[in-house]
């Protein structure tokens, strides 16, 4: 399989640096803005169904590898606090789920050499399977478990909440993720901060 945009050219030096750090902070900033407005526009409280932030998490790790992964678990803590959609202990408990949502798509795109610009059918399949379905299965599974543990939903409602969370977020993350990958990836892959590996 061709490595496509992930291929490191002969003599190409890629080093993690200040610009990656800055991009991680900027990406976190965008995540805070998008996550906050998403939570306020669709106020479902602590339930993250139809939350646009998930698309940011998946796409972030595709573009910026581990840096996107860090941003993926940091920005929801802040955006939840601003929008009042989750208290601090709940936000902290969400971290593993957010981290998973922020790493899986990035790992899959590198592992299977999928193109972030979504040029081939296999790229679409990769994003749909890993960036949307698998990421959200884990995210919604973890999130609904956290809600159950905090008593925020009745234990018997666990599966129903999980299913609603998964479907709502999957639709949102697919639509927004595709838009971002299709329209912004062609620019991002040409920038210095695009990570062919996990950190550079």
């Amino acid at each position, binding site marked *: 399989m061709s490595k496509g945009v992930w291929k490191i050219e002969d003599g190409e030096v890629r080093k993690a640096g*200040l*610009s990656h*750090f*800055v*991009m*991680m*902070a*900027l*990406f*976190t*900033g*965008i995540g*805070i*803005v*998008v996550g906050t*407005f*998403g*939570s*306020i*526009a669709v*106020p*479902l*409280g*602590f*339930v993250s169904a*139809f939350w*646009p932030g998930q698309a940011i998490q998946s796409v972030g790790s595709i573009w910026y590898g581990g840096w996107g992964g860090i941003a993926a678990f*940091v*920005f929801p803590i*802040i955006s939840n*606090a*601003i*929008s*009042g959609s*989750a*208290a*601090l*202990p*709940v936000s902290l408990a969400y971290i593993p789920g957010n981290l998973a949502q922020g790493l899986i798509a990035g790992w899959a795109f590198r592992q299977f050499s999928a193109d972030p610009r979504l040029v081939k059918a296999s790229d679409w399949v990769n994003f749909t399977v890993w960036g949307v379905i698998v990421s959200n299965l884990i995210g919604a599974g973890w999130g609904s478990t956290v809600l159950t543990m*905090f*008593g*925020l*939903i*009745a*234990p*018997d*409602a666990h599966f*129903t*909440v999980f299913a609603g969370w998964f479907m709502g977020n999957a639709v*949102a993350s697919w*639509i*927004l993720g595709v*838009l*971002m990958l299709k*329209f*912004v990836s062609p*620019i*991002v892959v040409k*920038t*210095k901060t695009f990570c062919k590996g996990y950190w550079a």
Partner: protein
Amino acid sequence: MAVERKMQKTIIGFVPYQSPIYALHPLVRLVIFLVTGFIPLFVEIPEVNILFLIAIIGLFIYSKVDLKKLKMYMPMVFTVGLFIFVTYLFFPIAKGEKILLYQLGAVKLYYNSIMWATCIYFRIIALLFASIFYFSTNRERDMLIAFRSLKMPFVATYFLGLSLRATGIFMEDYQIIREAEQARGLDVSDLSFVGKIKHFSMYMIPLFTLSIRRCEEISVGLYSKGTVISNKIDGRKRPDYLMSKNPVTQKDIFYSAAIVLFFLAFCSLQVFGGVFSLDNSPINIAILKLLKGG
């Protein structure tokens, strides 16, 4: 006479221009937040969490926070409640004695389930208001001072600060995009739900494109200031001007320790004595007595 409460815009909300709470060091305020942000988790009795909530609202008033600014959280307060009560209505819990209050077809309204939903609701609302209180009385700068006082590495606090600064920049950009659309006659409130979602997604593309340009500019700006993202400079500890202006005093340490001790004592009451269990709720006891005809 109504007291005018002047609020100052911050990146993540509004804080009062002047407030008695500012007399406390940001570290002490962070400790208060951490403690108040966890206390309700150890409380099942709704009355105690309601009292806690009243105390937090009292703190809002004492701190001169304009309560009108809290209006934006009201939809969230409502939907959280709706969500909790609906799940406990349709999926009643087995905890406690099942007392059927009402039945409509297959839907059964059990007292124990609704009472537990009430506990959870006031717990989460208390937690949320504790969180809102912190962000309504601390500027971003205060948060950074607090984290640095806890000896968080420069790399982490700088990342947090830059993220918050980026949030401010993108909020301004977002506002500019919205105003440009409004100037061209677009009224978002006229859009359908699906239209709003589609429209929201279209904001992201310019935001990302701007972020790429800004990333380059900020990186170059930081490079030109000789920035090294490290806790050390030339092998020595990085100077910290901000902390030199806001040193942690013995008094601040004493206050923080006292608050933490109070928290531990409070938690112990529940963990070892079950003092705040629902069984000890006077309202719960009274209603149960009533329902059982005792």
